[in-house]
């Protein structure tokens, strides 16, 4: 009997071994004969809603299969797309398991704002991201040019050859020199180090000479005697280059503290950009202090900088998935999370005042403001190849801000001319959104 049992154990062992092989090894999931791969296109899929319950992505029955319909073209860079031939991306892919179980997803996006932002881009290449400072909710996220998840079949060949790479999400993956939009960080670091106070008066001659090289203001304008707040409002390179030189390596610490050079914790994968480890020279420091040189950032990072200024120095972790519900699993709700206190609230208050001044009298003034009180900072980043990138970061309303925005237009020209009107349009629309 013992031998019989041993042989039986061996036989079961052989079965265990082959079970191990067939259940855990090998790539059978995507085999063309495996109906599981196609099954997900033949079943209903959870709806993705915006913050007020308007459907953003729905599955429409179309004969045997369901096709996914999206409420706005620009959503393809947040929600992604879900297509029988082209697979899935974005939140559709990240939350595929939940969505395929029929669970619905409520996002922090606002469809109206998303469409406003999409229209405001007017087909330009660039990115807009709107954040709620107090929570980190992403209210809108637009990257242009876009991929239309509704008509992938028709447009796919065009997308593939489009030189402006429509598949790229510029909010999270676009790396740009920030230009003057980093000046608030320089200002914050200088205030914190006690190098400067907001009423201090500077002499700005329009040009700063550093070891045979020059840092000059935009257009070489000399602003004369100005306070530091005015220097920010007028975007004086001369003043901020001097602050950056005084800060030295501490400038880079401040950039890192504000999240530059690090990948941001976010549902969607994002790039961290680049901040050098050391300042090589005074000229290098001066360049970095005005957002030029080797520094590279993503629009999402700059939106969080604006957001943390608006939120009294507290940077919130950005998120776009508010809630998952339905199906057999428990309801899953995202709670706002603090990423860190990047500066004392008093300094944040000073920065807000300076940025409001910029919006009222400085470079961030808008021709289309339409009664919106806001604070902002522009940037016109030189690229070394072709036109300048136009930047705007801002918040509204001026007193106790509830929304923050970052706008980037690739090679769009001047930040004041190009990015500010877009940013203000978006801020105005965003103020209408309930908390």
């Amino acid at each position, binding site marked *: *009997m*013992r*031998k*019989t*049992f041993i042989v*039986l*154990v061996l*036989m*079961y062992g*052989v*079965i*265990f071994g*082959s*079970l*191990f092989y*067939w*259940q*855990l090894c*090998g790539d*059978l*999931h995507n*085999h*063309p*004969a*495996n*109906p*599981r791969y196609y*099954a997900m296109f033949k079943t209903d899929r959870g709806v993705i809603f915006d913050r007020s319950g308007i459907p953003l992505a729905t599955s429409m029955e179309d004969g045997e299969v369901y096709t996914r319909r999206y409420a706005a073209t620009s959503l393809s860079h947040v929600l992604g797309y879900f297509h029988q031939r082209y697979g899935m991306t974005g939140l559709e892919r990240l939350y595929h398991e939940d969505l395929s179980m029929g669970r619905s997803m409520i996002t922090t996006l606002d469809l109206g704002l998303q469409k406003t932002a999409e229209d405001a881009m007017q087909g330009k290449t660039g990115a807009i991201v709107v954040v709620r400072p107090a929570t980190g909710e992403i209210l809108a996220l637009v990257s242009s040019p876009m991929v239309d998840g509704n008509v992938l079949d028709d447009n796919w060949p065009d997308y593939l050859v489009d030189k402006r790479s429509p598949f790229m999400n510029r909010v999270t993956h676009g790396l740009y020199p920030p230009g003057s939009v980093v000046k608030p960080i320089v200002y914050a670091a200088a205030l914190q180090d006690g190098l400067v106070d907001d009423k201090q008066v500077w002499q700005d001659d329009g040009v700063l000479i550093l070891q045979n090289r020059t840092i000059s203001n935009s257009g070489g304008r000399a602003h004369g005697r100005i306070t530091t707040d005015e220097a920010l409002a007028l975007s004086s390179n001369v003043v901020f280059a001097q602050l950056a030189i005084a800060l030295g390596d501490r400038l880079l610490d401040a950039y890192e503290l504000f999240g530059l050079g690090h990948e941001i914790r976010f549902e969607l994968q994002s790039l961290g950009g680049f901040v050098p480890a050391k300042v090589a020279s005074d000229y290098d420091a001066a360049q970095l202090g005005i957002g030029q040189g080797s520094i590279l950032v993503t629009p999402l990072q700059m939106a969080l900088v604006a957001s943390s200024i608006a939120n009294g120095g507290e940077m919130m972790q950005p998120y776009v998935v508010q809630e998952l519900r339905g199906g*057999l699993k428990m309801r899953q709700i995202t709670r706002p999370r603090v990423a860190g206190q990047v500066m004392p609230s008093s300094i944040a208050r000073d920065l807000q005042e300076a940025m409001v001044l910029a919006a009222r009298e400085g470079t961030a003034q808008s021709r289309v403001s339409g009664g919106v009180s806001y604070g902002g900072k522009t940037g016109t980043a030189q690229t070394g190849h072709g036109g300048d990138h136009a930047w705007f970061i801002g918040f509204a309303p001026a007193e106790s801000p509830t929304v923050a925005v970052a706008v980037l237009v690739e090679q769009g020209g001047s930040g004041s001319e190009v990015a500010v009107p877009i940013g203000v349009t978006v801020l105005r629309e965003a103020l209408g959104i309930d908390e």
Partner: protein
Amino acid sequence: MIKTLYRTWLEFTGWLLCLVWWLFWLQGQVSWWEPCVLWVMFMVLYFLTRQLGFDAGAIPFVAVLLLIGWVFLARLNPTWATAQTWGALVGCVGYVLGLWIGRRQPAYPLAWAVSALGLVVITTLFGISVGGARAWITLFGQRFQPVELARIFLIIYLAQYFVGGRSKWELAIVLGGFFVCLAWQRDLGPALLVFFVFCWMSLHWKFTWTKLFAYLGVTAAGFFVAYQWFPHLRTRAIAWLWPWDYLDSKGYQVLQGLFALRSGGIAGQGLGGGLVHVIPNVHTDYLFAVIGEELGILGTFSLLVVYLSLAFWALRLVHSIQDRCLRMTGLGLTLLLHLQVFLVVGGILRLVPFTGMTLPFVSYGSTSLVAQLTMLGMVTGLGGRKGGSLDA
């Protein structure tokens, strides 16, 4: 004794509650009384077996197997689960009968052989065809598979053949007749199973290498002949060896089973999470693949461990039997069950050609369930009563 009972049944009740709760979570229309009836049934069998002085150690294992099978059948189609419940209740009678028969096998080997042959001959003559094999008899409006009982009778005959030293010609006629009838019915799974059990019993009785190689040779020759003569067996062989070349036809069932298993992975898709209805004959042939998909390798491993525990229990019991004939019977019945598990699971895993039998206690099939429970009763009965003489 009360303490052991208490523990065993507490565990088992926990299992049951988990399973039933899980099932309700999925589909509200499941009739809740069926698992309760099964539970009470096993409880009664357990108490009865113990009160009569038999070894009741197998009941919890079988109960777990049957309930897992029941849950999966309910998940596939509640009608099948209901039929399974009735099968189990009839099987209960079979079990008690088995207990009673156990040590009272009349010493008329030919009577068993003739009954076995009779059953298969009747099936061959009057049987109806379901799913390719003409293995079914309709009696009083109920369909059943006589071969499930016939092979038990045959095992009893075989045990007495070895011990009683009966003539080889007689054996050749009995086995030959059995195989021819089954071949005629195109139901070669049970034939293969009985042949393997016969080989194993024969080697157990007296082991020689010559015999082993002879049996291996016969098996190989049998495959070759079957491949040449029976087109539907050729289909099975092709599905076994080259399923990837026949994705949509001959290899379809095998591949769908493998896809299901792979989809299960470690912890499975969860009950109800599998894409199971794409597998043909999923409730009889491929329930194991469904378990693999929905409970993952953890589920399939656990299930096989339960079978292995059952084998350990049975062989230990059989080992303690003094009477050589009863011992051979016990061995034969145990092997009948476990070789069937091997052929079924091995068929799904492409270790052996797929034979289309049921997974004992788990798969849908009332006749099979009744036969398996009867066999269980017989093995328990063979083990004898505590306090009584082992050679009663």
